[in-house]
């Protein structure tokens, strides 16, 4: 792009940052919504090319897949809740510019602790003692898994992106290990539904809905996170450290402490997500329990500009795409990875649209008039 313009004396256009005349929030959301719409149209075109169906049928199928029946709506809400929970978990770290891409592993460790409690203690402790133990264990497991990279980051400035990434695969292998240890039948490598008879350690059904408990937990978490970021001293410290570590140190914030505390929180919320997945949803654990959500959550959080309330919308969008594209693949006999392609396209567009919000393109003609 730059190459072509280099030959002319004055470039065709140049780019400036909108620091002084920042785009109004409404206009910025307009750009984002436009990007999603363009992306959805492109997704439609891709689907039509692959399936040969008429485009409106395609969108109809997607909506049907996500909202088609009561059961589908509950499944959509459940997926949104889990994704939202993990997105909330990674957000405090990102606000601090700590790239925690290890949510996958932290969720798995939380889930593993839940499963361990259900298997080992499920029939030994009375419920009133058992549930608190299970919850504390899973939160602690996630928190410890998040704290390890944070410790090295605070102490020796070890690259956290790569560290947390590697911790994911260690967690996956540990889970596989326990899948063999606890497998039913022995040696199959699958744990199967835990405590299916006693339902010990399962989240209770509220009003006959098995997912409602999960959704309520996540909603409470969302409100908590919103307040934590906006009105607490911790939240303020996180954003100062994220803006500039030097400034933070200058005004007397203990940066190391903030890093450790924030990752402890991030890991703990991931642990809750693991608890929700194992105790409230699957009632079992496999190495795919987190299912790549740890990575998707990073995009969800980033797309929402780290705002917990917007995150409800972005996680709903991703969950909708997943369900909608899943329906397309079932109806047209395509592979169910189709949703990942659509998600990818939409995220590319939203990522790209941020440029037009933060930067301004000034063309040569306009400059000449001035």
């Amino acid at each position, binding site marked *: 792009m730059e190459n072509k313009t280099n030959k002319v004396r004055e470039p065709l256009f140049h780019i400036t940052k909108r620091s002084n005349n920042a785009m109004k929030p409404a206009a910025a959301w307009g750009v984002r919504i436009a990007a999603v719409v363009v992306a959805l149209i492109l997704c439609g075109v891709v689907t039509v090319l692959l399936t040969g169906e008429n485009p409106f049928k395609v969108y109809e199928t997607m909506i049907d897949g996500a909202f088609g029946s009561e059961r589908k709506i509950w499944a959509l809400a459940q997926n949104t809740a889990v994704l939202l929970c993990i997105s909330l978990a990674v957000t405090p770290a990102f606000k601090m510019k700590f790239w925690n891409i290890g949510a996958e592993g932290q969720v798995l460790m939380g889930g593993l602790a839940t499963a361990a409690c259900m298997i080992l203690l499920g029939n030994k402790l009375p419920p009133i003692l058992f549930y608190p133990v299970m919850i504390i264990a899973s939160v602690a497991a996630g928190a410890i898994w998040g704290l390890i990279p944070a410790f090295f980051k605070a102490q020796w400035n070890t690259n956290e992106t790569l560290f947390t990434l590697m911790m*994911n695969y260690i967690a996956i292998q540990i889970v596989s290990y326990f899948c063999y240890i606890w497998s039913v039948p022995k*040696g199959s490598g699958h744990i199967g539904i835990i405590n299916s008879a006693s339902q010990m350690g399962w989240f209770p059904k509220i009003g006959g809905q098995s997912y409602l408990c999960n959704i309520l937990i996540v909603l409470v978490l969302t409100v908590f996170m919103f307040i934590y970021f906006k009105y607490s001293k911790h939240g303020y410290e996180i954003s100062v450290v994220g803006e500039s570590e030097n400034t933070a140190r200058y005004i007397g914030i203990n940066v190391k402490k903030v890093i450790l505390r924030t990752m402890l929180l991030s890991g703990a919320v991931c642990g809750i997500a693991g608890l929700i997945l194992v105790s409230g949803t699957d009632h079992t654990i496999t190495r795919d329990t987190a299912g*790549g959500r740890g990575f998707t959550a990073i995009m969800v959080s980033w797309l929402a500009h780290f705002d917990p309330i917007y995150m409800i919308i972005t996680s709903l969008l991703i969950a909708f795409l997943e369900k909608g594209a899943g329906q397309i693949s079932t109806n047209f006999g395509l592979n169910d990875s189709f949703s990942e392609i659509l998600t990818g396209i939409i995220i590319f567009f939203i990522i790209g649209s941020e440029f037009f919000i933060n930067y301004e393109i000034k063309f040569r003609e306009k400059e000449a008039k001035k």
Partner: protein
Amino acid sequence: MVVQIIQRAVMQGIPLLFGSTGEILTEKAGNLNLGTAGVMYVGGISGVIGAFLYEQSVEVLNPALAIIIPVLACLLGSLIMGLIYSFLTVSLRANQNVTGLALTTFGVGFGNFFGGSLIKITGLDVPSITLTRTSLCFQKSLPFASKLGWFGDVFLSYSFLAYVAVAIAIICTIYFNRTRSGLKLRAVGENPATADAAGINVEKYKYLSICLGSMIAGLGGLYYVMDYACGIWSNDAFGDRGWLAIAIVIFAIWRPNLSIVGSILFGGLFIVHNYIPGLTFASQELIKMTPYVVTIIVLIVISMLRKREFQPPESLGLSYFREDR
């Protein structure tokens, strides 16, 4: 048996070597491409699509074409992935981690989707994507290798792509350390503002190194399908190798020549559980953890040593905007 272990380790290591060399080239320009896993999937499936269409269209394969078509398809596919990533991160200055992860989601989805639906989309009447004929063309090794005993088995028994991988890694080392252009590229990765002030075209260097890096990484996917998996594509079989390639970049402290050793070592760690007698399935899973643990240890050690030449490129992960001061 030792010879066999080494052979298997090299076979496992070559895709990692392609991936890590490509990633090093990208990271030297200051861009952390977490999309390498996706790029390798796309490289693999593009090659498969090319080979599949070619195999279906002719009766007798022309060995040269059977190699050239998949390689070109693979390069094209991974080039497009590289272009998406560099357009978003270099031209539009998007966040590299988010873009990379989106690229992985997209790439893995693309690979699995076409792997699962290629037959249905093309409407051809075949039961599965089995490219044994193409794979045989890829797997041809030197005819006299088997006559040289263990020496031939260890060093000469691989197919041409394996040697291409090693050659690319060596060329990259020479390029970084011995050429002016390589010096400029490293300057871009260390401090783009300084490089820009010195008259280096930062965007051009970033674009070129990301795109070339993606194409190299994509070949890793192709090698995996055509050589290692004997031309049979199965979804998710490629697994986490893309992430392992990123791990090797750290292990090799951003040096392609060390990445040759690192890839073969990691490849060995990947299969070593098959050769240790008396392992249960459970403990095999724990042994598979070692590459990642080793990477973390290396990461911690280099950060403790604080030696300048062991560090990642200074501006790794940051986008460059000339007017930012």
